[in-house]
């Protein structure tokens, strides 16, 4: 029996498991997936929870519902990978051997990385919405809040879904307007970037939207610490931003099991070939999703495009052929902009998000970098697609390679 082990049964791990289960002969291949919990989270849905648009039932399902029958499911923490001996050590020290390994352990928030962030006030006046509990606590807080200064701070890049902080602010604008207290709420983005986003054209358009919605921006803000006494965040160059409520996107890092394995960079991301998706250190290890160090966005859509490349390269690899597929960094993200509208961006390693139309067979074109209702329905439909198509490893009618069709070049 040849052994494939997949670490992490989240978005990317579940996709790969489903895709490969269909083609790897059951008599020849044993496929194991390891994850430490029974619950699969639809993380993109966390964004809507603080505003009461989604509840817990919309974002959690049992993981096993999405695993194929033949999969050998191990629910356990992963202690570390022993790559030299091709084995994985679990928390209880038991050992799982592999011929090939796919690392899909994702990224998580680490509020402990910022001085003063994680103390008694965490969950009271300082929140995150990158976890279910964080988003739920924030929802409770908002329900009885009468206004004040709300500061959203991104600690450092890269983060999962780099547009989520902007979406949060756009939705907050919409939510407090509906509650009739928008004039009592000051909204501010304190960001380490020089503007709203990482790429020029999108930064210009999204920056315009922030201004239009009266959301203030403190750019180039590298947070050094939270001054809890004075309720301020303080940057390394001593800029102080006061808050009544702080919504933090803490440092995102790969799992500690990557560090324990000696396979990570300074943020525990696995150095990975950005085209083949093979680990740079070990050619029998593939990496997919947020766990890798690729200069692509950390997003479910990106993991999906990667999964098609990884699938082909994996089959080439086990058949002893040269790997012929290469990932181009394709990302495709809806950006919720409040009041029932959204934008869409589509880009890759080389082409920044551009305006224009995005063809989508069956539903019709979406508008790129432009607010429409249609895009908002696209964003909401993404949840259905996620549970029913994406993680089941089925095809989406979007090519894994970015296309210029419909885009208006700058």
């Amino acid at each position, binding site marked *: 029996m040849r052994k494939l082990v997949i670490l992490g049964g989240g978005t990317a791990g579940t996709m790969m498991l489903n895709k490969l289960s269909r083609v790897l002969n059951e008599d020849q291949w044993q496929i194991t997936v390891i994850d430490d919990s029974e619950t699969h989270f639809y993380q993109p849905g966390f964004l809507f929870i603080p505003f009461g648009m989604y509840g817990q039932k919309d974002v959690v399902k049992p993981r096993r519902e999405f695993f194929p029958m033949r999969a050998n499911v191990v629910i356990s923490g992963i202690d570390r990978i022993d790559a030299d001996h091709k084995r994985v050590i679990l928390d209880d020290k038991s050992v799982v051997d592999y011929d090939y390994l796919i690392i899909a352990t994702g990224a998580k928030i680490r509020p402990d990385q910022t001085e003063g962030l994680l103390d008694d006030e965490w969950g009271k006046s300082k929140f995150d919405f990158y976890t279910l509990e964080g988003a739920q606590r924030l929802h409770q807080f908002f329900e009885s809040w009468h206004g004040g200064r709300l500061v959203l701070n991104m600690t*450092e*890049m*890269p983060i999962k879904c*780099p547009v989520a902080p902007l979406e949060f602010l756009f939705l907050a604008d919409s939510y407090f307007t509906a509650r009739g207290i928008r004039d009592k709420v000051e909204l501010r983005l304190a960001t*380490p*970037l*020089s503007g709203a986003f*990482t790429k*020029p054209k999108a930064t210009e358009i999204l920056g315009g939207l922030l201004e239009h919605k009266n959301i203030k921006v403190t750019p*180039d803000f*590298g947070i*050094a610490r939270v001054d809890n006494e004075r309720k301020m965040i303080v*940057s*390394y*160059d001593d800029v102080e931003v006061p808050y009544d409520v702080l919504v933090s996107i803490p440092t995102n890092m790969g799992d500690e099991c990557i560090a324990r394995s000696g396979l990570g*960079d*300074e*943020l525990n991301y696995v150095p990975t070939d950005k085209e083949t998706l093979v680990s740079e250190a070990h050619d029998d290890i593939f990496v997919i999703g947020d766990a890798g160090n690729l*200069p*692509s*966005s950390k997003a479910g859509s990106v993991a999906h495009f990667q999964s098609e490349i990884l699938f082909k390269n994996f089959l080439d690899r086990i058949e002893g052929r040269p790997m012929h597929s290469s990932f181009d960094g394709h990302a495709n993200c809806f950006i919720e902009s409040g009041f029932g509208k959204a934008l869409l961006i589509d880009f890759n390693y080389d082409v920044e998000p551009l305006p224009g139309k995005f063809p989508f067979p069956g539903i019709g074109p979406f508008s790129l970098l432009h607010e429409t209702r249609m895009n908002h329905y696209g964003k909401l439909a993404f949840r259905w697609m996620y549970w029913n198509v994406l993680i089941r490893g089925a095809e989406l009618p979007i090519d894994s390679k970015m296309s210029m069709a419909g885009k208006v070049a700058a």
Partner: protein
Amino acid sequence: METLEILGKHLAVDKDGNLVNRADWNEEIARAIAAQEGIGELTDRHWAVIRAMQKAFDRDGDAPSIRRLTNESGVDVKTLYQLFPKGPAKKAAKIAGLPKPKGCI
């Protein structure tokens, strides 16, 4: 292709305003870019960071993020911000003649 006038020369720059050709770079150019970026005299500590940045780029094909830069240069984050205010990684990369770090995607 955009260009930037430095010391009487028109040098090709990318959309972030960083030099396209490493061959165009030298210490004199670095001092001129630093002046344009509002950073005064380049001290030994500035140069240590710039060199560390170039070394990391030559090895990794990407300019390091702030976190990696502290490891590479041995200079702590607070000091990096004093040397290169408002985004040390971005600023130091520009002065070092390198593209903006890709890390911030």
